[in-house]
């Protein structure tokens, strides 16, 4: 076996090991990677930034722990931005293991708001986030399509109580709130096919402004909805999350991951080049 044939048949475990080493070493070295903000992410940030205190937004946390790495940073950045600006949020979690994700995010972000922080030059005072006043968490119900369609009539149809078992009518935040008409926008942060249902049974039927936060695997498939205007903004994978963190001036795990992404991609490209050189040279030798 010559060197070019060897280049094509590198044991995948060497690739994994090399990649893991590069990822760990890059993580331990502290340097910044420039992140350029795209229009589809900026539109979401600007939309929320221009809302008034007391406005309602709807955040659907439709992902399981397997998508946490990419989608949690989006949730943390958007929800903190909205709460710092005194907006009220209605949460749902329409994926099977989503309620745990939403519950964790709500607790963590509530803790973060207990600290005085400065974002984009504005210092925000400390505040307590109270269930039923600053947010409600509706929880999970099976069959997302029917739940999304049902909420368009009245949130109380699929969700007579919130996730913690409190009847919706007894929560101060829900006075006068019936359905999506009172929401300024819906932001679906999703790692499941539930996103298709939000577009079809939610946006198409009720016409509310919809923004998406997606895993990287799904991102390319949803650009047509951006082009058609069915969604007004989109964050794709960890890059989308990092862009949002940059806009919100709230550096979190997404921006922290970008240096790993940079070098990991270089390693993968390197191995692709090695494999292709091996393939092309071996093919030429075979033809001769």
């Amino acid at each position, binding site marked *: 076996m010559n060197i070019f044939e060897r280049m094509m048949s590198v044991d995948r*475990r060497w690739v*994994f090991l090399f990649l*893991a080493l590069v*990822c*760990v070493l890059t*993580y331990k070295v502290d340097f910044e990677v420039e992140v350029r903000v795209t*229009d589809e992410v900026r539109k979401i940030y600007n939309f929320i930034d221009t809302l008034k205190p007391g406005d309602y937004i709807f955040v659907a946390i439709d992902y*399981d722990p*397997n998508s*946490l*790495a*990419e989608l949690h940073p989006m949730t943390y950045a958007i929800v903190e931005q909205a709460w710092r600006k005194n907006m009220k949020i209605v949460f749902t979690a329409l994926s*099977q*293991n989503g*309620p*745990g994700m939403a519950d964790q995010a709500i607790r963590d972000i509530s803790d973060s708001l207990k600290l005085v922080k400065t974002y984009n030059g504005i210092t925000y005072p400390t505040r307590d986030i109270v269930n039923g006043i600053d947010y409600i968490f509706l*929880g*999970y*119900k*099976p069959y997302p*399509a*029917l739940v999304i*369609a049902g909420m368009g009539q009245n949130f109380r149809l*699929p*969700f*007579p*109580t919130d*996730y913690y*078992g409190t009847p919706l009518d007894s929560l101060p935040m829900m006075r006068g709130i019936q359905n999506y008409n009172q929401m300024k926008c819906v932001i679906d942060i999703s790692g499941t096919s539930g996103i298709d249902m939000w*577009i*079809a*049974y939610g946006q*198409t*039927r009720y016409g509310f402004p919809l923004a998406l936060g997606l*895993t*990287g*695997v799904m*991102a*390319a*498939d949803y650009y*047509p909805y*951006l*082009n*058609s*205007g*069915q969604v007004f903004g989109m964050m*794709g*994978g*960890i*890059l989308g999350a990092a862009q949002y963190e940059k806009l919100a001036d709230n550096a979190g*795990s997404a921006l*922290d*991951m970008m240096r*790993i*992404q940079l070098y*990991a*991609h270089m390693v*993968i490209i390197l191995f692709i080049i090695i494999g292709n050189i091996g393939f092309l040279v071996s093919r030429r030798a075979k033809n001769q």
Partner: protein
Amino acid sequence: METTTMSMGTFLWTSLGAFLTLGIFSFLYKDNPFYKFAEHLVVGVSAGYFVIILWHNGLQPNLFNRLNDGNFYLLWLNSAHWWYIIPAILGVMMWTRFSHKYSWVSRWPIAMYIGIATGLAIPLEMKNRVLTQLYASMRDVQWNNFLGNGFLDNTAGFSQLLVFVGTIAALFYFFFSKEHTGAFKGVAKFGIWILMIGFGASFGYTVMARISLFAQRIQILDLYTESSWADSAPGTFLFVWFIVFGIFILLALVEFIRWLGRAKTA
């Protein structure tokens, strides 16, 4: 990095999490009992969690609480919301799938569900995936704003033209009733290039997603190590990690002995 302390309970649970993370990644080397244990644990915990969520978030508030004012001995027919018995019966009918003799009964609730879902889906999907998408791919090209803010600006005339031409060319590639020769072949070839660019974008995003999963585990393990060393019980920390790494070192030793045996035979 700011160091924090964690309670003993958090420490033990996080140690288990760290062990399971390493167990899952050990599959990259080869299938092994630690990977199997972690995989089965994930499936089992997810199923158990889902059952509890369904009970507390589904059946209890949406069915039992609504029939609460009725009487069990009157089959809740005296409840103010007695009609909730109907979906309950339909739900029970689904369970007849487990009987060979009565499994036909389950077709009724399935038929009803499919009927409702289809009725809802067809007009919405037609509008969502066909009509709106068709309209979006055939917009008037804005010649006075042809380049917009760069060629990646999706409101620019160039982007709209590219979407239209790209869609038509990709459709040409899948048109097999005419032989791909001459100009037809050229358009089809442009179509396959458009498709490949699309697949390339998907592949790039997928690589980014997979690296994100690994990067997040690095962040968690790093945070965990930082916090654990600051814990008031460093003895426990060392003990847990002795077990965790001990297991992997044992696994490596077993593999090494096997490899020696194979090398000797060869």
